[in-house]
């Protein structure tokens, strides 16, 4: 059985600059630094807002209207764009983004909605479509990378999947980012670990007798060697924020999610191609305004710091940053002071890599009477656009393991969201 490894052949870094010294000092390996900005291989950082963030309490506020609730709005550096007052730092960097306020999905359930936004396809009981992160990890090579090419940070209720591209493209999951990689450290001292591994080798040899080619196909030995290589890799330092200056850590915010965004930047620097960073808790069916506000306090500094940091390190032109959840929330406020699921017009932020900068796309009805926003962008087209922004052709057709031809994207890239329309 052939399997494409997540990890490319081991190659030690010889010229690694010290990681994470400051915003101004790019901590890139020499090989990466040889190319600048957009010339670098592209990467995707997905800031996943799990639960369905309220567009009205974030990037599409309608203060003073029947649907606006008590949320105040502030001006931003992007002309014409308002954001909720809980996002002052994002407001200050919004000119780096394109803001879409008219995403449209047909899925109002968390699991199905997550699948639709993350893959561009509606859920199919007979086929698991790969997440955009998996597609990017497969498509964009990263020579010398010893870490998984796709990493998911944070506790995601419906995590990305490699789907029909294979389990090797499932993300490596770290539920509490900021610590050394989970499951990367043996629990015993080196001498005991060596004895354990020696015994394991003997057991493998004994089992392989009379089953040589079959055991080879299990990839057990190969996979373990790769895992052990990973456990020893210097690149694992990218999972830790311990050596980041205090100022940097403070800028991202003292939160698990903030550390996740900082780790995401470090992983991208190390050559990881896709990173999901999840902030959960947006499902505010009750007490919407304080719930969304609490999330904003975590998201605002982390997102602003991430974009600023990537830009300061000359990584923004090669790194697509996508901020989105599975759907938005209803214009109507329910009796519990909450908002319910609303896939008919919600917001996302796009920055970096091939995305256009400073565009403001779509608008929702400030009175909440029309279900359809102006200039609607279907989530299938949104997904194809994300792929285009990292240089992946969503029209590429791949054959699933059962021989079914499938396009990587169900939709078509939206030219006005891209710097160089495809």
């Amino acid at each position, binding site marked *: 059985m052939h399997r494409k490894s997540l990890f490319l052949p081991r190659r030690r870094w010889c010229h690694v600059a010290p990681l994470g010294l400051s915003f101004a000092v790019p901590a890139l390996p020499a090989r990466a630094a040889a190319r600048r900005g957009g010339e670098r291989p592209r990467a995707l950082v997905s800031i996943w807002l799990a639960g369905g963030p309220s567009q009205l309490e974030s990037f599409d506020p309608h203060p003073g209207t029947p649907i606006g609730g008590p949320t105040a709005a502030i001006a931003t550096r992007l002309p014409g764009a308002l954001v909720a007052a809980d996002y002052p730092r994002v407001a200050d960097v919004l000119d780096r983004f394109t803001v879409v306020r008219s995403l449209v999905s047909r899925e109002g359930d*968390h699991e199905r909605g997550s699948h639709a936004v993350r893959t561009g396809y509606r859920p199919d009981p007979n086929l698991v479509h790969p997440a955009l992160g998996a597609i990017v990890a497969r498509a964009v090579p990263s020579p010398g990378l010893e870490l*998984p090419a796709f990493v998911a940070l944070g506790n995601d209720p419906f995590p990305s999947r490699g789907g029909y591209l*294979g*389990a090797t493209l499932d993300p490596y999951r770290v539920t509490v980012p900021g610590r050394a990689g989970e499951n990367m450290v043996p629990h015993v001292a080196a001498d005991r670990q060596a004895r354990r591994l020696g015994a394991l080798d003997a057991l493998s040899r004994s089992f392989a007798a009379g*089953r040589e080619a079959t055991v080879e196909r299990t990839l057990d030995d190969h996979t373990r060697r790769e*895992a052990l290589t990973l456990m020893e890799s210097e690149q694992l330092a990218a999972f830790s924020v311990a050596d980041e200056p205090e100022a940097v850590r403070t800028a991202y915010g003292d939160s698990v999610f903030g550390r996740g965004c900082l780790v995401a930047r470090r992983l991208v620097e190390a050559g990881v191609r896709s990173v999901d960073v999840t902030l959960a808790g947006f499902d505010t069916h009750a007490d919407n305004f304080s719930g969304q506000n609490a999330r904003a306090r975590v998201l605002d500094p982390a997102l602003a710091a991430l974009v600023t940091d990537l830009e300061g390190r000359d990584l923004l032109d090669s790194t697509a940053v996508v901020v989105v959840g599975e759907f938005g929330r209803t214009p109507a406020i329910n009796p519990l002071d909450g908002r319910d699921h609303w896939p008919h017009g919600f917001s996302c932020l796009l920055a970096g890599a091939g995305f256009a900068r400073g565009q403001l796309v779509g608008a929702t009805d400030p009175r909440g009477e029309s279900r359809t926003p102006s200039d609607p962008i279907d989530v299938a087209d949104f997904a194809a656009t994300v792929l285009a922004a990292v240089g992946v052709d969503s029209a590429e057709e791949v054959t699933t*393991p059962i021989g079914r031809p499938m396009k990587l994207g169900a939709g078509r890239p939206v030219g006005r969201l891209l710097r160089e329309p495809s």
Partner: protein
Amino acid sequence: MPSHRQILRALLPAVALTTVAVVLASGARDPLPASALAPPPAVAPDGSEATVSRLDAALAERWRAAGIEPAGRADDLEVLRRAWLGLAGTIPSVEEIRRFEADGDPGRLGRWIALVLADRRSADHLARRLAHALVGDAAGQVIVFRRDRFTDWLAARLLANDPFDRTVTAMVAHGGLWTEAPEVNFVTQAMADGTLDANVLAGRVARVLLGQRIDCAQCHDHPFAPITQRQYEGLAACFGQVRVTGLGVEDDPARVLSIDLPAPADGGAAAMAPKSRKVPPRVPYGDDWQAERRTHRENLAAWLVDPRNRRFHRAVVNRAWAIVYGRGLHEPLDDLPDPPADPDPRDPLDLLAEDFREHGCDLRRLLSILARARPFHLSSRHPLRAEPDGATRLDAAWGAFPVTPLGPDVMIAALVQATSLRTIDRDSHLLTRTIRFFREVDFLRDYGPTEDANGDRQPATIPQTLVRMNGRLARELVEANPFTAPGRIAGLAADDEQRLDLAFLTVLTRHPSPEERSATRSLITAAPDRGGGMQDLFWALTNSVEFGWNH
């Protein structure tokens, strides 16, 4: 909603008290009592022996045709392990292995297979396997879809050995509330945003209950098989009367499935053109079949299990084979060839399907036949496995037992059992079952799925290997303490040789060879303490390829 950790924290005082009681009780007991060694009772002949013989003959013919000498007979303990893994989704406990070894009857395996099949663990495992195929793994619409209820309902049917055709009829045709009539969760799995997606159910029926992959006909005529888009729509329309309300699933005779039509290109005609069309129900592959049941679903269910619908029996047999052997007679499981005009008695699939049909869709009988057939008792070692082409040829002819990866649910169940001397089942102590439950949840979250929507399993990935090597659960399970096998064996076995023997038996269901003894003994002798040594030994055994794969 409180997380399971918060619940656990709330239960801590009770857990602490129970722990003390368990420690006192367990300390007073021999960890490996020789009591209860009575062999399982004899199994009354039911005529299935003749089918086993015919199946063996059909496979022998395959070996002859392929020019393959089948593998030698596997050791009885190896077969016992397979039976537990395939039929019950776990490995046998040391208690059970001792009882098996004490049974000196040469025909003991048949009785033990019957014992496994009658065990609640078997019903639970088979229900999980079938539920994976029938309702998938998606969480679904929380209020109206209850996978746990559906799986428990299936397990109860399997434990009672209800005829499988009745089980299928119930889930396809019954109505009611998803909590009180759990079979209707088969239908409510297709609920999305308050509406029923009949295509989901048409796909499930076609794939799982007919062994046919016809989903592409949802959008266009099937390119290879003789099924048209209209036929597929007809199958979906069998669910067109379904209405899901707060009172449950019911059928409204006035409802008909309608399909939206694309707007015509000519703008002028658009206003006049119909926007949708109604689809008449139609049972798949049964154009001549007529029935006048009360609802379209009842019609469909009646056709599915009709003796003339051989696709149903063949699909069930192929899936059962995959559960028992780790892969199907035909792969993919849901893409079976069309049945020949008359059943072919030399084809294992037809032969078994006919037996299944003639004996009232008795699933336990089918599984028992599969586990008593000769391929199940062949070694997985074979000279042809020395090189890839030979191994492929051997596997295609079933000339040796296949080597297949354990699914994550089986892996965790086997891990928990491998680190306990006592049998872990529904009779286990509440504390044991509680700990197992939370460990399983954590492990499955970290380990992730190893099989795709079609049930195809893949080798473990690097992150999965890391979970097994360094994960918190793996560390806790192999810890040497009074509750775990490593701790109890360290303290109570007579010497290191017995410790080695018991560790291999507990984890790998076999005794170590002399070479393995010498290769692993130093783990115990070089460790700073005996407990640490046993911990290292259990770590090596549970991380071995032998443990992670059925063979």
